[in-house]
């Protein structure tokens, strides 16, 4: 039954895509050109990688809106770091650092969500050490005691560590609502990047050489009448990750644990799943995907602007829900998600092709989200009523 109903959403979304494509194609034949296809695939790569992470979180019954901010941190901090180090090597290092940043920030989210004792203690310890240390430093500065900078920092640092140690020992883990936590960390990550690292974008010619090379890492380039159009290799990253997530969800106990957690958290715990570990994995993995995607974004857009990306998270969530994932958890598939992303991307990118003025773009996107989430919601309501009638009590 699970298969059938999922299949139904998938087929439905697939049909909508086909019909929509035909309509757009009739209005403007440019839709079926290679250039446009490559364009859609490029947009799809970025949203798709995000969507894989969102899918996992939603199946587990949570929600994450901080992943775009994680991508911003990964993109901007990594690029800045490479420039500062004057790094001349290949782009792979940037991917590694981006992924690492993503994992660390994902773990930071998990510290507040998973109930993990140690993550919570580490975060508490660091937060108190930094805040208290900073306050002590300010007090010392205000007292105007002649102190060497080294002495100032070390005194403040050590004095900060002491209360941090004692308070952290009292912490036994946090289990906070996922939406609110990630709303908070989104703002925190983005604000941190913009204030402490910088608000200005880095344009293509200022990029590290490895990244500049990566800009042109195309699979194919085709000459058309309007110039060359190319497909970037980043799509392979997406395909690889999609297969990885598919296998993870379908064929590993961890993946089944994610479904179990989303379906009945208490039962999952009683069955012997380590819920805390699963949640740590989920949020770290979302962070990892977002971190990688930060670098992919730089490669595709050829610019590192820390003021973009954040704000698109809700479209990604909408795409995943459109693809049949249940926002209450326990349900969702990789194939559905890919179709959902495809639908949103086609709608989003084809407005101009259809001759709709760009000022109407948000109106149309809003309508897509409302209709796309409304139809399955209304169907669920009706089938719930039907089920009640059939099953009796």
């Amino acid at each position: 039954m699970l298969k059938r109903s999922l299949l139904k959403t998938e087929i439905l979304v697939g049909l909508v895509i086909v019909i929509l494509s035909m309509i757009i194609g009739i209005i403007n034949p440019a839709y079926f050109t290679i250039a446009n296809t490559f364009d859609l695939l490029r947009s799809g790569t970025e949203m798709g990688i995000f969507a894989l992470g969102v899918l996992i979180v939603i199946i587990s019954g949570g929600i994450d809106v901080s992943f775009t901010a994680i991508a911003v941190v990964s993109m901007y901090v990594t690029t800045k770091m490479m420039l500062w180090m004057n790094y001349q090597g290949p782009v792979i290092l940037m991917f590694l650092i981006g992924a690492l940043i993503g994992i660390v920030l994902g773990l930071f989210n998990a510290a507040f969500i998973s109930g993990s004792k140690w993550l919570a203690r580490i975060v508490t310890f660091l937060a108190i050490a930094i805040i208290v240390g900073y306050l002590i430093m300010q007090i010392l500065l205000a007292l105007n005691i002649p102190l060497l900078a080294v002495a100032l920092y070390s005194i403040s640092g050590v004095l900060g560590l002491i209360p941090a140690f004692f308070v952290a020992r009292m912490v036994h883990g946090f289990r906070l609502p996922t939406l609110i936590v990630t709303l908070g960390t989104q703002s925190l990550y983005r604000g941190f990047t913009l204030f402490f690292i910088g608000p200005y974008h880095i344009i293509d010619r200022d990029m590290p050489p490895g990244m500049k090379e990566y800009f042109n890492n195309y699979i194919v380039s085709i000459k058309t009448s309007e110039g060359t159009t190319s497909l970037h290799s980043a799509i392979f990253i997406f395909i690889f990750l999609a297969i990885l997530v598919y296998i993870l969800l379908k064929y590993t106990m961890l993946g089944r644990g994610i479904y179990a957690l989303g379906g009945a958290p208490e039962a999952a715990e009683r069955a012997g799943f380590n819920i805390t570990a699963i949640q740590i994995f989920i949020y770290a993995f979302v962070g990892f995907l977002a971190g990688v995607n930060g670098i992919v974004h730089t490669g595709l857009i050829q610019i590192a602007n820390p003021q973009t990306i954040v704000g698109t998270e809700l479209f990604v969530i909408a795409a995943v829900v459109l693809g049949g994932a249940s926002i209450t958890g326990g349900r969702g598939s990789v194939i559905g998600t890919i179709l959902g992303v495809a639908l949103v991307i086609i709608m989003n990118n084809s407005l101009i092709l259809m001759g709709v003025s760009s000022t109407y773009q948000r109106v149309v996107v809003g309508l897509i989200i409302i209709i796309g989430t409304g139809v399955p919601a209304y169907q669920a309501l009706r089938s719930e009523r039907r089920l009640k009638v059939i099953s009796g009590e």
Partner: protein
Amino acid sequence: MAEELLKVQNISKTFGGVKALDDVSITIDQGEIHCLVGENGSGKSTLIKVISGVYEPDGGEIIIIGTHYKRLHPIEAIHEGIQVIYQDFSLFPNLTVAENIALNYQLAKNKQFVNWREIRQVAKIALDKIKVHINLDVRIEQLSVADKQLVAISRALLQNARLIIMDEPTTALTNREVKSLFSVITNLQKDGISTLFVSHKLNEILEISQRTMVMRNGKKVIDADASEFNSDKLVYYMTGHQIEDVSYKYSKKSETSLLKVKELTSGGNFEQISFELMPGEILGITGLLGCGRTELALALFGVQPIDGGTLSINGQPVKIENIQDAVNHGIGYVPEDRITEGLFLEQSIGRNIAVCTLRDILNTIGFIDNNKLDSHINRWVKNLNIKTPSHELAVKTLSGGNQQRVVLAKWLASAPKVLILNGPTVGVDIGSKSELHEIIRNLAEEGMGVIIISDDIPELLHTCNRILLMKKGRMVDEFQSEEITENELAAKLTEE
């Protein structure tokens, strides 16, 4: 004599000063069906949780075939073959039957990857063991309660269970399903698997049990051979005092019926239902689970859509299309599932009582008159004898019986003409049960019309003056309760 499987010795457990378990011992032999009986709050659940390793006892020890444990960890309990089937079954509604059965097994084997073919094989074997057939590819949420339970049992068996603890397993089962559950339990017994059957349904205990232990206030009252007990004795041990159930005598109060239902039909649920309810009557509607009795009640309350037929109240034809209509026409409904449909657990007792009657306590400018509200709430707390130090406390601090009184108070406050009670004493302990029956009888004597939906035969016979029997969506029979015995009614209920 069979070998001892589990021996719990002198276990105590205290929660913040309250003794939940006080020096309790129990011995379960291999292949024994042991019943654990007690009212809510008697310590049954705590004892189960100690045996399954969820709670660490303050004192005493647990011996499982010679191995002594001061503190049993959940995983050790599982390894020792102790399996608990909780009331909610701990199943995953979004996963298939096969996966639900095999998942724990796979986990216990510490598998990292999933072999779907193996899952199906394992699940099939497990279901065959208890000789039931359930489609392996159906999602759990689409199964009936009884099937869910069978899935939970077969899952437990997969883990080499030696003792299966069932916590109130029959609450949501029909009589026939209970019978088949019992045959599964006796089959397990033949294989040497013990069952600890926790219940407060006396007839079931008397039927299935080999030994019975009664608990009260965290203490063991008695643990003896099943043959030592009868229904009265069990009640006596559970409550500490004798309870007499007086049956209800209906005296005619009026010629016009309070509620008249004529040829009411709701497609696929019930058809052509006709009956009358007189003021002062307590009418029982019974039938097996799935016979349409709950749908009928819900239709009268405006939840279930009606396809045909008419309703009249006090002789006036009425249309009830939603709950607001029903409430406006003076119909109240106490749902079967108290926790999810009847109560706001986190909210105060007072607000729970007042929620239906807020419009009666408004002052002239449309705001709530807090003095009126307070006296209103206090009156009902007193009338129904709800035991609480303050009505500002959350409802979840109350016991099951007192919670049910809150639900009753909520409706009584709105002075309904017709009160429909669906399973009014499900999950309520025996002491409270007879008090609730008393309240219901008093209400009827004051002229209210009461409909009780239930399959608790003693309850029906003691509380109602007339009983209607439903089968497969149709009204098939009617009895005066003084003219029929428990056994006769039970036979009528289950015959094809």
